[in-house]
């Protein structure tokens, strides 16, 4: 039997800040992994990535990353690299997202 498709999200870095960002359902970007749009099929993942890459003037290096759905139905990172990208340096909790926890919208507000 073919291996079941592992859900994926699209992630990139923000052009201006370099910050880790995720593609949302609404076609925007968020700094929160849990707010990312989840693709459940290969076709949906390809379409999500293609749409994200159209934003190349404001983002850098979009790619698909594996995810899983948590108990609340929101996506959670599975690979350790992606887990670290949601926090910041693991030995310095005073730096990176773990020190802020604000989304782009909150910051702009």
């Amino acid at each position, binding site marked *: 039997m073919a291996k079941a498709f592992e859900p994926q999200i699209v992630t990139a870095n923000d*052009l201006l800040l370099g*910050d880790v960002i995720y593609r949302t359902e609404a076609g925007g970007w968020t700094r929160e992994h849990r707010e990312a749009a989840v693709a459940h099929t290969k076709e949906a993942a390809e379409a999500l990535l293609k749409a994200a890459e159209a934003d190349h003037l404001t983002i850098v290096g979009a790619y698909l990353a594996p995810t899983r759905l948590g108990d609340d139905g929101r996506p959670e990172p599975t690979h*350790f690299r992606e887990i*670290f990208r949601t926090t910041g340096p693991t*030995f310095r909790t005073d*730096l990176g997202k773990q020190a802020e926890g604000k989304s782009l919208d909150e910051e702009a507000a």
Partner: protein
Amino acid sequence: MYRYDEFDHAFVRDRVARFRDQVQRRIDGRLSEEEFRPLRLQNGLYLQLHAYMLRIAIPYGTMSSRQMRQLALIADKWDKGYGHFTTRQNIQFNWPVLKDTPEILDALADVEMHAIQTSGNCIRNVTADHFAGAAADEIEDPRPIAEVIRHWSTGHPEFSFLPRKFKIAITGAEHDRAAIKAHDIGLRLKRDAHGRVGVEVVVGGGLGRSPFVGVVLRDFVPKEELLAYLEAILRVYNLYGRRDNKYKARIKILVHEEGIEEIRKRVEAEFAAMEGPSLTPDPDELERIERYFAPPSFEELPNLSPELDEAKAADAALKAWVETNTHAHKAPGYAIVTVTLKKPGEAPGDATSDQMRALADLAETYGAGELRVSHEQNIVIPHVKKGDLAKLHAALVAHELATPNLGLASDIIACPGLDYCGLATARSIPVAQDIANRFKDHDAARAIGELKIKISGCINACGHHHLGHIGILGLEKAGKENYQITLGGDATENAALGQRIGPGLDYEDVGPAVERIVEAYLAHRASPDESFVDAVRRLGVEPFKTAVYEEKDRDAA
């Protein structure tokens, strides 16, 4: 120290102005990332895991107090209050935002610094012995040659798009502190039978996924012919180096595939066909450069300092620090001080802006206003009167910069790893912190003696793991961080690549494994005088392998 002339100033300012325009064009959408990426890399700007990273060149690891203060200012104004000194004698800032980077480069240009040659397939920032100009065992200060190479290589039109990056290191001493045999070209100053100073040229060294120790290409090149000879090597590499495979594009692969005899034949043919004199540096310009590296005027002092001896007798911490962190200076009554950026529990090579300012001030008060960055991620104050060591030490203590661990188990090289780096496959810094904490007892660490632990978070080997007495390489295996351990590497004139001891270990097993390796060394060494690396050479890796794997299984049972 070298001072920019009018041309240097104009060149660096022009680069900043062009980069400012390039950044603006990227921001307003006139440049795509594909177009912008090579331009930002040529100015030291990388995009890493969490943010941009700016890598700034510290040519041959030498800087002034004024320059160090400017780095502190950059850390505070545009970054997060600290910087990371690297194994290439550079400094990296981990959190700049894109629009600020031209401002940062302008602030660097104000103090004759830049980020040119810190990335891309060009001749990179030349590294040198961090004790250059101060070491007792030195034939001659290698930095004027390093500066001449910088003049020649910066923006060299023929060598701006090499098959791959190209790293040159130089030492003026017999004892190699610059790891020259692990570079594309390694240069060692030496004297010939007539007492003339020339250069031994080593080629084809390098680490990464295919590590090689460099081999001697030419035993002696007269100093005035060196640039022509280097140009001949680079030309051969540029013509014959592989461009079909990024992983086989370094000169080490060309030397390995073609053989040193063949490369020598081609280089010598190229060299013979050259119009040598056009590449012979203008003697006036050479003299101008050499003048800048004239040593400070040393006072005539007795070599021993009763003042220091008295202070040491009264202060055990000072005594320990003087014994581990100072080296013999060429001038009597002086010492070379190394300030390790390796306080157990801290990230190797990191310094806060306050620490940078303290180092700048102390170098000015006690050390002729000069500092060095070592490839082992420490800071050197090269010219300190022995009579001032106690005062300097007290001031360093106040800034948490007086850890007496140079060359000991907690003086670990570690690349940024997966806490910062986009290429990394595993973390390095927390592994280093764990190991350093296990060896933080000074007396126990002294009893172990010299032990160089080097950690890389991926196969690219920025942490020089192949050259570690204990080398640690972080990889990914089955969705987890996994670490391979090598033993017996050596970065000095006895350069050797470490030998892998067995299957990789999980993240949390690395620290305990290193402890077991050290315990095995203490149990098996012939005498306390036999260093760790000598014991590995004599015994091979077997006893250590047993200690790591069999004892691990036994403990787990």
